């Protein structure tokens, strides 16, 4: 593990009760305080660790705040242009049929510039997993409107608040994905509370299981906070997810071909 930062180790008078798994690199985060990218990284790393597949995993990194996911996850990685991660992952998957392949993409990445590549990879049933971080803004470029921005939400490019007549409504990717034949699993979770984080880990696990079982394209949307561009403190950001985002982006499993109890299974 490169980048090990000794400051993260316990001092002599401290007892270590909770440690990172080896798939997650120890390093000082570049994310803002209260940002959920770190939690999402941790969930992915734990699932890859639990499944014992990190050494055959290939991450396709995207742009945005999460461009540097590869600095945190101890796996082979390749960087994709903005929005094209699912196309790059298609190439990786076709070239290396035995690898575990996943993309990690923001909403600007996957739902805007890259929605074409994303839907078509999903529709082809590429055996890849897409982890989709929905924080309703473009984080890295400074808080511009995303396809997922809520109606009425003010951003640096929707200063009066997003309106249905001018910008259209927020795109619900998990529901769209569920309708495609090549998709084997589509779920939306949130990272605002311990309960939701636990559910999210389960969903990430099922998504990777589905890929490894060779079932098709699996998709997990994670409602995440961007305290910086929401101009909220981390606690208030969590509240916003619960109060404003979840009503628009309902949580749940929209498709799971491996689970007969899930509605939409045969979509």
């Amino acid at each position, binding site marked *: 593990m*490169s980048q090990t930062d000794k400051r993260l180790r316990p001092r002599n008078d401290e007892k270590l009760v909770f440690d990172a798994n080896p798939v997650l690199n120890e390093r000082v985060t570049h994310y803002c305080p209260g940002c959920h990218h770190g939690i999402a990284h941790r969930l992915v790393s734990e699932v890859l660790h639990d499944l014992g597949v990190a*050494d*055959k*995993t*290939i991450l*396709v*990194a995207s742009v945005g705040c999460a*461009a540097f996911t*590869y600095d945190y996850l*101890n*796996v*082979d*990685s*390749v*960087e*994709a*242009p903005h929005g*094209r991660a699912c*196309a*790059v*992952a*298609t*190439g*990786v*998957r*076709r*070239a*290396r049929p035995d*690898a*575990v392949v996943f993309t990690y993409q923001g909403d600007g990445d996957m739902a805007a510039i890259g929605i*074409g*590549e994303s839907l*078509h990879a999903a529709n*082809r049933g590429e055996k890849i997993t897409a982890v989709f971080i929905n924080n309703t803004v473009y984080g890295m470029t400074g808080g511009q409107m995303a396809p997922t921005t809520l109606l009425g939400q003010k951003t640096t490019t929707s200063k009066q608040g997003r309106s249905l007549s001018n910008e259209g409504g927020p795109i619900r990717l998990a529901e769209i994905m569920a309708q495609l034949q090549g998709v084997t699993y589509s779920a939306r979770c949130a990272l605002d509370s311990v309960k939701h984080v636990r559910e999210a880990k389960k969903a990430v696990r099922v998504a990777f299981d589905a890929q490894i079982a060779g079932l098709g394209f699996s998709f997990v949307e994670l409602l995440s906070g961007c305290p910086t561009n929401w101009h909220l403190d981390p606690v208030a950001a969590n509240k916003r997810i619960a109060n404003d985002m979840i009503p628009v982006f309902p949580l749940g499993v929209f498709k799971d071909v491996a689970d007969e109890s899930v509605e939409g299974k045969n979509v």
Partner: protein
Amino acid sequence: MSEADRVLIKGNEAVAFGAVDAGCRCYFGYPITPQNEVPELLSSLIPENGGAFVQAESEVGAINMLLGAGACGVAAMTSSSSCGISLMQEGISYMAGSHIPGVIINMSRGGPGLGDIGPSQGDYFQAVKGGGHGDHRNLVLAPSSAQECYDFMFRAFALAFAWQNPVMILGDAIVAQIKEPVRRVPPAGTHKPEAMSDLARAWRIEGFGGRGQNAVPRLLKSVYLVEGALADRNRLLLQKYTDMRREALFDSEYTDDAELVVVAFGSIARIARSAVRRLRAEGRKVGLFRPVSLYPFPEEALRSRARGRRFLVIEQNTGQMLEDVRLALNGVSSVLWHGVMPGLFIGASELIDPILQAVKEKS
């Protein structure tokens, strides 16, 4: 080899056979005339050889699939024409910036814009000057016959892996659609397909477990944010592009005693060659110089023929390779130009007058 060993096929089909014979195992592409026989044939040839064929949703999708497969060290390619290649430029720049190999066929057509589906060499600048954003170069080969379409595929994959760089085959509607006898035999001295995966072992991504115990993860990327890091990266790339010059290729005919040397590439070079031969038969001291690699441009070879001769660039565009010829000759010799407009199908007789005119013209 007997005549029976030759097959009568189009340039596009020769590309497809050359690709699989050279070891190509992944193809990603999107339909566009005049290159459709390439994906049509590969849609069966590649799976038959244990590879993957994907008809992408767009050229943007295709080039990024190529980026992904190339990153895995697998011999992979895409093919398109002009406007499709424009859509691929972002991905090509990322591949160059990330040191990722891949082969891109451009059977170019008339432009700008939708243009037409006739022949054109209007993509010369885009192909040889980088084409995408940032300082990058593609290795570019220009075939002028169906046989070369076959043979150059071996060279293209070998170059892509040797230099970890995108390689473009720049053809046009003529060489794509021409039907001629082709020997389907790997050209002498070419790599075995397995040699490519050996070359890739040092850098490809595959899951670090594939590299044995104590392996550390690898990352292929083009982003360098720390101050000075991108400068270093560009220095490294510059060195690579400088070293690539040794790959320059050309062929020439009657240049030793020529007073006027015609410089042309691709299909037009072939037509120009007929015109030059015809004029030679009449005792005119004309010759032909054909850059085979357009990047690196065979500037030294051209320069070595400069003294005492004049040059006439003939190309099917409004004046693009002309600039490289002038740069190579750098004032030592005078350089004239004759442009054939994109979309026209011309014969050798249409080049006789322009060449004779150039012979007469004293500058």
